[in-house]
């Protein structure tokens, strides 16, 4: 199925670098000296363009289109033809691309102080972005002398309200995990192993690690659970709510096999549900069993996809003993998901945050748990708006991968990532230098944090906790009353 067209101009010096960089077989060498373009294999990953020394190469959308039709678009017809030929479920990766689903972050504007209270200069005045996330008891306790007893369950301390989302070893390469772990250490935040286990070489990053327990239970053992500051139970993810995972046996080799504790060559299947959780009371049991296994020293996160009834689901999770609820929205990324699921299931994270936050407040339990939001957070303004809508902190996945070189070609599921990210091919993996990658991640999150401080300062807020759920900081444009009502914000000018 041809979607892109590869071209070159006269500045090409036939160094053949592009063919060496292309991992999809789209650019081949003919007779050792000429280039052969296999347009249909091109994913528009931009690797060849980036590495062409003379800027000779162009990747464009294929201008050959089917006859225009107001109902059946080009992609619709191509997909029909593909499925007619193959009988296959369409597979894709990265985040949802539903064209008519609004990105509410872009319809929200922020406030600033003028006259009635002072704005604050973040470069000079203290500006706190540290967040503690975890559960809180309903009341204080005092000892016999009236001194307050520390009855807080374990909390995660984030120096900035930005963490890295769960991405599993197997779906992504070990070098990506290395970069995420060491960047987290430098930033004072957390990275998340995803469901593929934790490579032994990364045990030293324990203080900045969140380990995941998913339905496949890959690589989960006592040491794994205790080599982290928090354990995340993954119920679902925004890109494919209600759907399990399947890492093909071809990728279960070497360290991936060892880390996942799955024999080489055997498929690693993550069932759609946890088969020990068929109801909410079963979740409470899993939460408590993990707490027992970790001697009540670790926070437990429950991660769910933002679905229609996310508010009562979150309320149930809050009452299950979980310390933190992670909600992954409609636009959340994935290494592989059925395209129809990715683009049609779930709800945008903005609406999910607002409705969960409001519901937990109605039930008087919002202060008892923390909320982490993720799913399509692209920049510091998105982070800021997510927190003002009610999140304690956010996680970024796709944005972190972009910092490592990803150009969102959505071909992760092929395992041929030309940027060395979503691949286990040793040759391709080498393309990502974990140290350089960590530096880029640190730069990115530091820059966003500086921007968040600027925006906070402009509003006269000097601590991020005073921003959480502070909806007066937000106004909407181009929204209807229902959308404003769910988000709990006013229209601009009101």
């Amino acid at each position, binding site marked *: 199925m041809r979607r892109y067209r590869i071209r070159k101009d006269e500045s090409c010096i036939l160094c053949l670098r592009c063919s060496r960089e292309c991992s999809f077989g789209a650019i081949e060498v003919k007779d050792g000296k000429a280039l052969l373009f296999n347009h249909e294999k091109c994913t528009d990953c931009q690797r060849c363009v980036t590495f062409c020394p003379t800027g000779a190469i162009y990747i464009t959308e294929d201008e050959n289109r089917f006859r225009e039709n107001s109902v059946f678009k080009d992609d619709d017809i191509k997909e029909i033809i593909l499925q007619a030929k193959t009988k296959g479920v369409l597979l894709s990766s990265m985040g949802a691309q539903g064209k008519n689903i609004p990105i509410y972050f872009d319809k929200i504007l922020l406030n600033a102080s003028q006259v009635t209270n002072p704005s604050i200069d973040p470069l000079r005045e203290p500006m706190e972005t540290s967040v*503690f996330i975890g559960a809180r008891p309903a009341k204080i306790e005092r000892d016999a002398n009236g001194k307050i007893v520390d009855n807080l369950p374990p909390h995660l301390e984030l120096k900035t309200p930005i963490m890295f989302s769960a991405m599993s070893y197997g779906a992504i390469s070990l070098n990506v995990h290395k970069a995420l772990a060491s960047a987290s250490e430098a930033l004072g935040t957390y990275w998340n192993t995803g469901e593929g286990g934790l490579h032994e070489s990364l045990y030293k990053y324990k203080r900045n690690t969140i380990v995941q327990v998913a339905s496949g239970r890959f690589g989960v053992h006592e040491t794994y659970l205790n080599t982290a500051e928090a354990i995340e139970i993954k119920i679902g993810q925004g890109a494919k709510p209600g759907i399990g995972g399947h890492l093909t046996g071809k990728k279960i080799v070497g360290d991936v096999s060892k880390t996942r504790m799955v024999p080489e060559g055997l498929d690693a299947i993550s069932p759609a549900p946890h088969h020990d959780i068929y109801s909410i009371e079963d979740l409470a049991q899993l939460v408590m069993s993990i707490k027992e296994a970790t001697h009540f020293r670790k926070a437990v996160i429950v991660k769910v996809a933002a679905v229609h009834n996310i508010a009562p689901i979150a309320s149930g999770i809050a009452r299950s003993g979980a310390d933190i609820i992670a909600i992954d929205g409609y636009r959340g990324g994935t290494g592989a998901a059925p395209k129809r699921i990715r683009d049609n299931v779930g709800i945008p994270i903005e609406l999910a945050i607002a409705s969960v936050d409001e519901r937990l407040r109605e039930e008087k339990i919002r202060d008892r748990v923390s909320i982490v939001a993720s799913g399509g957070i692209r920049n510091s303004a998105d982070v800021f708006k997510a927190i003002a809508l009610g999140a304690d902190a956010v996680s970024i996945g796709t944005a972190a991968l972009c910092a490592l070189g990803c150009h969102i070609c959505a071909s992760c599921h092929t395992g041929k990532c030309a940027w060395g990210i979503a691949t286990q091919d040793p040759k391709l993996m080498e393309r990502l230098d974990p140290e350089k990658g960590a530096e880029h991640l640190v730069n990115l999150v530091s820059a966003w944090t500086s921007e968040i401080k600027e925006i906070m300062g402009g509003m006269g807020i000097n*601590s991020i906790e005073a921003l959480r759920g502070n909806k007066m900081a937000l106004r909407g444009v181009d929204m209807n009353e229902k959308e404003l009502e769910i988000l709990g914000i006013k229209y601009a000018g009101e």
Partner: protein
Amino acid sequence: MKREGEVRISSGCAISGIFCRDGRRISGEAIKKSIAIMHNRSNGLGGGFASYGIYPQYKDYFALHIFYDTISAREEAERFLDKRFDIINLSKIPTRQSGKITDAPLIWRYFITPLPHLLQDSQLDEMEYTSKATIKINESIKGAYVVSCGKDMGVFKAVGYPEDVADFYRIEEYEGYSWTAHGRYPTNTPGWWAGSHPFSLLDLTVVHNGEISSYDANRRAVEMYGYSCNLLTDTEVITYIIDYLTRKQGLTLKECSEVIAAPFWTTIALKDEEERERFSYLRKMYSSFLITGPFSILVGFKGGMMALNDRLKLRSLVAAEKGNTVYFSSEEAAIRVIEENPDRIWAPRGGDAVIVTLDKENKQ
């Protein structure tokens, strides 16, 4: 145009307070003089006073000050009260007409006590019972607004300059051991009587200067616990937070001040271990109640007063002592005008609460 309560109004202000540790009751003359000198800090759109110890003959009863827009609102509110409380005494609050205060509502005062069998059935203590009833009046009886409802205390407020409000209410005829005053500078016109300060809940009264930047985060947090912020003012949300943290969570006022004006983490790191643990605990436990942005507040309560600045000290606050009397004000001049030679005069540090209470032998 939207009235206060339908929209959030910013405002600047002047505050002043006098507290007699020995329980000596002084007339309202002094507090009027003090707040009047800061005339420039108000704009005539709100002034008010709170005083404690003014109703010794009725000190065991809840004293309700209520504004009514209409006679029917009064009748409805009185029927409501009559069903739930024993009304010991009721009267109009005496006022003096001067032409400077206009558009006055009907202003009534009641001394009441919960009907014993209803109180027992409700399984609430009498404070909670009364507080619930007054919140209900504010929420459900149109044109009725409970200004204050504590014991042996009362709030007197209006639209106008504070010194004119004092004359209107004949404040000099009351004697109390504790007085706070407020002159308001809201950014809207016209002011609204109920929107003036002090704001009050049971025995708690708050006067406040500044505009907090954490407002909506704080409001949404405190509304979880049964409070309803109808006025959308900073003072209202601060009052509810203090009531929640002290009366319902059992924090001391000092601990409460350490939550709402919590030190920066970098400052906490400099403290000794025990302090560090306490401050960290309170910040983590009650992170929703950290108040950021400028504020200086005077909190009146039964038998005491607290003065508190935000942690950056973005609003001015001066304290002074002379013998058994303690003074607080936005400006030193407002203290000097009533006490020329204090024994001690100082500016409390940002986030450092100054709490004064009646001497032991005078505890009521």
